[in-house]
């Protein structure tokens, strides 16, 4: 029987490489700014220091917790990187948020005991592009979490079939779209200046002259800003941030 990784390797790649997005709490921004570095944190699941990114999507993952944190409370900050800046450092790659997999949120489609061993895929960004092409067809559809309809799998592709079942609603009702967000782990700290292209943050943060100088002059990152009121409400800011990032991708001719 073929593994999920083998199945993915046989698929064509999406034509464009999307950026990688790291989402964090607003109060980490000062230390990130001071050091120009994203630092790893001990991951409770993989038991080593890791940094988490998601391919193309602004999803949140706190490496210090085994339970998936539903949301950043308020004022999330998303750092958007050229995939090439990170690709040489990738430690592991999964087709979903691994934290949710360990909480049973992907059951009945995928059991926690199978998730980490059976769904690890080759540690290259090309694997993410193959997942997009195979299960979503296009980047737009991947970003909107709209899988291809009515995919069929052979008897040898049980793992791929289970993943498809998961992303088309076969997980726990509490499972959100992180079940189809390609997770990229790196095991070393990252110099932000090496490849950041944009940062999502509250508009009012740009009032801080030192921060604005770091973002625009040192990092040369495009600020994608949202208003204070929206940033206070998780029910609202997810849609707004996804919209801002999609607009940025379109402006950058990635979509």
């Amino acid at each position, binding site marked *: 029987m073929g593994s999920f990784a083998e199945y993915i390797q046989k698929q064509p790649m999406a034509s464009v490489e999307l950026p990688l997005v790291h989402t964090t709490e607003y109060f980490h921004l000062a230390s990130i700014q001071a050091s120009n570095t994203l630092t790893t944190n001990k991951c409770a699941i993989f038991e080593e220091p890791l940094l988490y990114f998601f391919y193309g999507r602004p999803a949140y993952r706190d490496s210090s917790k085994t339970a998936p944190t539903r949301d950043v409370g*308020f004022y999330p900050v998303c750092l958007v990187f050229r995939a090439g800046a990170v690709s040489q450092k990738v430690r592991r790659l999964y087709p979903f948020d691994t934290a949710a997999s360990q909480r049973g949120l992907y059951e009945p489609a995928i059991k926690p005991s199978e998730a980490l061993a059976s769904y690890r895929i080759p540690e290259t960004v090309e694997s993410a592009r193959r997942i997009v092409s195979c299960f979503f067809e296009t980047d737009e559809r991947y970003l909107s979490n709209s899988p291809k309809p009515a995919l069929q799998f052979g008897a040898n592709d049980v793992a791929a079939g289970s993943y498809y079942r998961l992303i088309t609603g076969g997980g726990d009702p509490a499972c959100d779209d992180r079940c189809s967000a390609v997770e990229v782990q790196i095991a070393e700290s990252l110099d932000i200046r090496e490849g950041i292209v944009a940062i999502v943050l509250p508009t009012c943060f740009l009032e801080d002259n030192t921060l604005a100088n770091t973002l625009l002059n040192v990092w040369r990152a495009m600020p994608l800003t949202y208003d204070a*009121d929206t940033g206070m409400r998780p029910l609202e800011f997810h849609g707004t941030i996804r919209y801002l990032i999609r607009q940025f991708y379109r402006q950058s001719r990635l979509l």
Partner: protein
Amino acid sequence: MTSPRRVQLFGFVNPRERRPAFLIPVFGSSTDLWIQDGKDDGLVWQFSPCSVPSEKIILEDGRNLWVGVGDPFIYAFQFFEGPVEIGTKPVIERLLAARLSEFSDLPFLLMDVLKFIKQPEALLEAIDRAKEKLALHNPQIAEQWTLLMKTTNRTKPSVLERSKASVAGSGQAALVASMVAADSALRRIEEVQHDPNLPVRHKRRLVKTEVAALIAARKTEIEDRLKIQQMRLAATAEAAERAIDIYRNQVIYEMGDEFYEFMGRLGVVLSLKDLGLLKELDERLTEFRRSLTGKKIKKEFVQAILEQVDEAFAAVREQLGKRAADLIVSEKRKDD
């Protein structure tokens, strides 16, 4: 963790750590912190957990304030001097509107305040002042940010900016054109909304027509930009398949974004996806595509399929128009 139904105000967080600023009211206790969560209707839908380092919390003492699900949202603001001002949206709006001059040197905060107090007409000037500040660090990024802000904050660009956009490429020119069309539709809808002489039923019909027409115009514009019309004219099965692929993979998502943004401007957060229409439309388009695949078929059949595609879009347009009208013109707003 179960979201509580009712919680006591515990303190505030000032994410900017400078004054003046909007503060975030936090509820519960130091080990069990919650924030209000809701949509644009101004009511608390639920409480969401949040984690903030304890040293970042400005403790509240003296006010024994409880907030529950269904209550109006509580906002907090702190000016340069004085205590934390706390109240419902109308209370904070009034305070901010009366002291707007205090934000003249803080254009980014001013943008937030102007949106909060719903004075979008002054937003353009604030964005331009913010751009000047950003340009000191990086003029090129400042220019891009301004274009993005003016697009997403729905203010009309100047003639110069429009010409810059059209030089920048057909994609951005189309974006600006759609923005202007949306501005006009928005103005007409607001006039309809506030016309005291129009009965509710009539208002709804007019709003529905405006929204449906805007969506139709947007679709035509995207079709032109993506050269779908040429594919349709070719009327071969291959060209029709390519056209349907573009509809499935690009047009419906751009329309969804456009609709989300437009409704947001009218104070309603609702997307095509929320309504499940995106999925339905995608499924129908997939069926149409399947009916063309691998067949040698006559032009008439291809054209008939493409007409059915148009009908599917028209049905969605009508449903969106109706849904928008129901939300924008509610019975409650009859007396507006």
